């Protein structure tokens, strides 16, 4: 089983979002970066499958050099080697193209990633990669078992879930509870330092350009209603907020 796990290097979920340079750049000051939480689920399941079935797990990131701390953590969790494509991941098509170029050469059985990155929340890259490789993609996958050349999966749909079977190779966008998050142990951290990390230069160019960022308008004060007169809230929702 040859598995590729694509990860994102993203601001921590509690990070305060702000912009600099006249709202044209994300303000990285004081922001902690993490491996995308959905990507973490994908990586954990990949390591479990590799341990169960044999094979390799390669972790891939399309990102600049400051991603390497997060990549090393993925190696410490159990990936065997890593690839970083040295560029800013600004456009879904562009990011997918970098992954597809590598995957077309390496012929992975499974390509796993998070259902979406938590910075741009597009949920588009897995479908694009699959199209570029001419194979199916599914997302969000909550359960994944491999039986020979067949993947048996559960995918979340609006208001429920569905069971799916498909032949490998596949591209999957993952979410909980596909696996428990893994925490690197000391041995993992030590060996991660010497595991191979290949750096490639990007190909092609993006189809979108972000010109400016904006923060939402600040929220007004919260209007309090006494618990003894809770029914007053309904009146406010109907006649003031006009949402009923």
């Amino acid at each position: 089983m040859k598995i590729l796990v694509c990860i994102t290097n993203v601001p921590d979920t509690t990070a305060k979002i702000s912009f600099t340079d006249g709202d044209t750049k994300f303000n990285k000051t004081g922001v902690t970066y993490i491996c995308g939480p959905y990507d973490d689920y994908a990586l954990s399941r990949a390591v479990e499958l590799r341990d169960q079935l044999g094979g390799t797990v390669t972790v891939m990131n399309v990102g600049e050099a400051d991603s390497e701390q997060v990549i090393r953590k993925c190696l410490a969790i159990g990936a065997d080697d890593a690839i970083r494509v040295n560029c800013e991941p600004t456009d879904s098509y562009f990011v997918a193209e970098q992954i597809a170029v590598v995957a077309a050469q390496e012929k992975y059985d499974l390509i796993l990633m998070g259902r979406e990155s938590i910075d741009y929340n597009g949920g588009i890259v897995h479908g694009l990669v699959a199209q570029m490789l001419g194979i199916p993609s599914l997302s969000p996958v909550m359960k994944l078992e491999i039986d020979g050349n067949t993947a048996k999966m559960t995918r979340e749909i609006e208001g429920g879930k569905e069971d799916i079977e498909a032949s490998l190779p596949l591209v999957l966008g993952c979410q909980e509870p596909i696996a428990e998050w893994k925490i690197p142990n000391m041995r993992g951290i030590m060996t991660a330092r010497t595991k191979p990390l290949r750096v490639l230069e990007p190909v092609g160019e993006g189809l979108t350009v972000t010109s400016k960022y904006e923060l939402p308008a600040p929220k007004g004060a919260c209007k309090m209603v006494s618990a003894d007169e809770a029914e007053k809230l309904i009146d406010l929702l109907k006649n003031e907020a006009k949402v009923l």
Partner: protein
Amino acid sequence: MSVLILAEIDNGAIKKSSLEAIYYGSEVAKMKGTTATALVIGSASAGDLAAAGNFGAAKVLHANDARLAQGNIMAYADVLVSAIQHESSDVVVLAKSSLGDAVAARVSGKLKASIVSNVTELPDLSGGFKVKRSIYTGKAFAHVEMKGDCKILAIKKNAVLVSEGTATANVEVFSPALNDASFGVKVTGTHKASSSISLPEADLVVSAGRGLKGPENWGIVEDLANALGAATACSKPVSDLDWRPHHEHVGQTGIKVAPNLYIACGISGAIQHLAGVNSSKVIVVINKDPEAPFFKAADYGIVGDVFEVLPKLTKAIQALK
């Protein structure tokens, strides 16, 4: 060069989010001096299809091959590409959904079309094609210039204020050749909660957290939701504890909702929960802890015991009707 909208079917009717996408597409068509065509895949009545005209579609292409019934992503993408070619469309609009996103991604890959997801407003066509999108799970927005000959926009709920008209769309049967190779993925079972209101589509949502103390207490949440005609939702701990199913979990790693009204009962409001609800128009928070951080993000608040407050609200709603 019409604007093409991918519309999804649920229970034999066009989904509400897709009707919003049709309206959005028709507004873009007006800006471009052209018309809007909706591609509807799946079984629906002639009346329902023609009613897409109320939302601005001049034409409906209806693809109703029985093999498309299971929502196969690759086959849908083939049909959408055929429709884009049939209509010579250079703009494609769809509502964000698990099926729509996947289909749009494949079509972007097939046509090398630029794609932007979570679009929150109508585009700016003065000098190029610019859209505003939500990023960082609703905590910020980006203004994005889309290049390329074909552009695909996956819109977020409430991206446009819909005003319904009375026009009728011309319905055409659309039967492009299907490729057997696109049907390799087999759905072997579907588990769907029956009769409940779809959470991502809902205009009103009643959500509850650990403050409810146990799954056996959800009756008061459901009563309020039923009285309002709202969908029910929950916080992550509640879904992790298996009190409620995962598809009700709202937050950073769950469903992101954008209803007109979100009522949070016994949820403290961790930043990860807020990320899933911050696009709601009006937020009501009911919590016995006056220091609960959720009050800072709320429009209306009640400090009180949910077990006393919720039945009062349900009664007040029932009295309205």
